[in-house]
């Protein structure tokens, strides 16, 4: 285990050291005093663990392939941008476009997330990206979504409050969004169909909620006792009739 103090270190230097440690086989790296340094773990490969104390900058874990990153605090924008595999655990909130164009791996966020989370997520063969959000999400959740799973738990939202924003799943043509408790259908994109989750779905959800509960020390059963709504695209070709050939 290596502990690095990131205070006043430029991201270029910080990331260079982190990459060097990863390449030298260091299995666990703790970064203390992180204040907005961007691109932590960008393009990194392997099974290494990275623990971040503070607030990492944008594009954290972009193109990441394998690492596990825990953030003891909030994260900014574009967490897991175009991520390929690995796991990110955020003990707080995350900003906009979490998991943009993400192709694989898992992102768990204890709190709320910003706009356009899971935009253009896609899946391929055995790769199925997952984002689990403990709180609520901003508008355009799962825009253009082509694959993968987004789970919104809405843990701290009241019954009157929606855990999703407007235009949820707009342009969606693949993948699934699960929303705990209830969904305001006026907030869904016209491509989206909402149904109550089946037993099969609940099994999938339970698998991820189990992990979520474990990471954040939250009671599994109290989360699962609520119903889940499944959102999916009614057509994998939403724009098939848009053009005159």
């Amino acid at each position: 285990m290596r502990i690095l103090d990131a205070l006043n270190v430029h991201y270029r230097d910080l990331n260079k050291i982190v990459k060097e440690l990863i390449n030298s086989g260091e299995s666990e790296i703790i970064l203390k005093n992180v204040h907005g340094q961007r691109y932590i773990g960008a393009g990194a490969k392997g099974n290494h663990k990275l623990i971040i104390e503070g607030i990492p900058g944008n594009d954290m874990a972009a193109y990441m392939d394998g690492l596990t990153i825990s953030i003891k605090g909030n994260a900014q924008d574009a967490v897991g941008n175009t991520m390929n595999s690995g796991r990110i655990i955020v003990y707080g909130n995350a900003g906009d476009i979490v998991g943009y164009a993400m192709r694989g791996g898992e992102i768990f966020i204890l709190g709320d997330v910003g706009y356009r989370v899971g935009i253009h997520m896609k899946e391929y063969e055995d790769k199925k990206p997952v984002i689990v959000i403990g709180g609520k999400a901003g508008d355009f959740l799962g825009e253009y979504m082509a694959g993968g799973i987004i789970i919104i738990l809405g843990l701290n939202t009241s019954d009157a409050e929606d855990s999703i924003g407007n235009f949820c799943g707009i342009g969606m043509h693949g993948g699934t969004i699960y929303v705990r408790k209830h969904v305001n259908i006026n907030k869904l994109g016209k491509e989206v169909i909402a149904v109550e989750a089946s037993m099969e779905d609940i099994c999938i959800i339970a698998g991820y909620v189990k992990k979520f509960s474990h990471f954040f020390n939250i009671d599994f059963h109290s989360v699962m006792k609520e119903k889940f709504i499944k959102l999916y695209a009614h057509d994998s070709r939403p724009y098939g009739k848009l053009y005159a050939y």
Partner: protein
Amino acid sequence: MSAAYLTPEYIIERNKERCTNCQICVKQCSFGAHSFLKEEKIVVSDDAKCVNCHRCIVYCPKRALVIKKNPLEFRENANWTDKAIKEIYKQAETGGILLCGMGNDRPYPIYWDHILINASQVTNPSIDPLREPMELKTFLGRKPDKLKIQNGKLMEDLPPQLELEMPVMFSAMSFGSISYNACEALAMAATQLGIMYNTGEGGFHKNLRKYGKNTIVQVASGRFGVDIDYLLAGAAIEIKIGQGAKPGIGGHLPGEKVGPEVSATRMIPLGTDALSPAPHHDIYSIEDLRQLIYSLKEATDYQKPVLVKIAAVHNIAAICSGIARAGADIIVIDGFRGGTGAAPLRIRDNVGIPVEFALAAVDSRLRSEGIRNQISLVCGGSIRNSADIIKAIALGADAVYIGSSALIAMGCHMCQMCYTGKCNWGIATQNPDLAKRLNPKVASTKLVNLLTAWANEMKEMLGGMGINAIESLRGNRLMLRGIGLNDRELNILGIKAAGE
């Protein structure tokens, strides 16, 4: 094309005396314009299906076929042209957005053809390129303002550079919009010529990764096929913000074209639509571009130059200044005549500006800000021949991208039906039967021939100007004169009128 009111655009004339009903034309036409009547045992044609791609004519062993423009015309009307009327019929029938392929075909002025090149007479000598050295080698990438040299040693390494044997590269054409064989032909030719092939947004097929040294990998809004291995597989990374044929518009590869290979290369499920959003959703402002540029540099340890490609639009000069300051190493400007596999017709024909103006404006702007030397400038958008390249470089480009010219070299006949996926020449198609018509080796040889010829022509023109290294032409607008241009146009191009 089921529009009831539409009449055929072309007429297929079959010379009955020559035709042996061999059915080759039937097999060659993917649009179904020719068919064999079993009972009568004759081949007949349906004019309405013909797209005038010349495939049947070239392959007819008896030279029995001729295709003509249909002389049928509406009553003469300068406003309501044939084209305008037919487009309305088509939309009234389908309710669809009109699609088209290749570049803008409207009769806008082509400024290349209003620019003339200089040659030396008496006061300095022209140079004979056949016998004296003539250098086309070009480096693209970020350059420092000055070198630090001590005791004959370079004190700081240069940022990564793309080394080109001539100032030409193949522009981005994705696997999906064109066939695998076409991609391989481009990659092979680029390797042989010492230039660059560009993957476009279609991912980088595993079998083509051996050409990585001569490949630019593209990162566009859909991020198809993008992972860390992809980013490391090429010589440089291009962020595509826009393209000349459809500025401000995303991409849409219909599921029919997503077969097993395209699916694997783009890393998306078989048969799904591949939608590229109009913007990068992590770029809503110029400082976000900086964020993406540096995320790519960080991920690849600053070993790859990063290009940023944008369509030539009205405020291009200021935008490019911002891109340069955002950290791009190479800026690509794509003019409004640039080609495409599919674009909404109205966008293609009406959005953007000519690359000649864009290039001149950007070069001048970056010079006035004192930063032109720091970045490289590439221009594309219908470079048709070597003279266009010479003019582009004299206006201020470091190198050019060619797309349509390369496709034509491989056999494209400009029928503009790329978006149908039925390309009879095996280029813009994912139909295996059509794609195999294009032999990558043969096509690659044609590309090499074309660019070898262009290189020789460029050397001739350089020699004529008394220049023996391409870098001495860069921004050398004194070597250009305008013809048939008004003062304002001359002013924007920064050139004098012929005779001045």
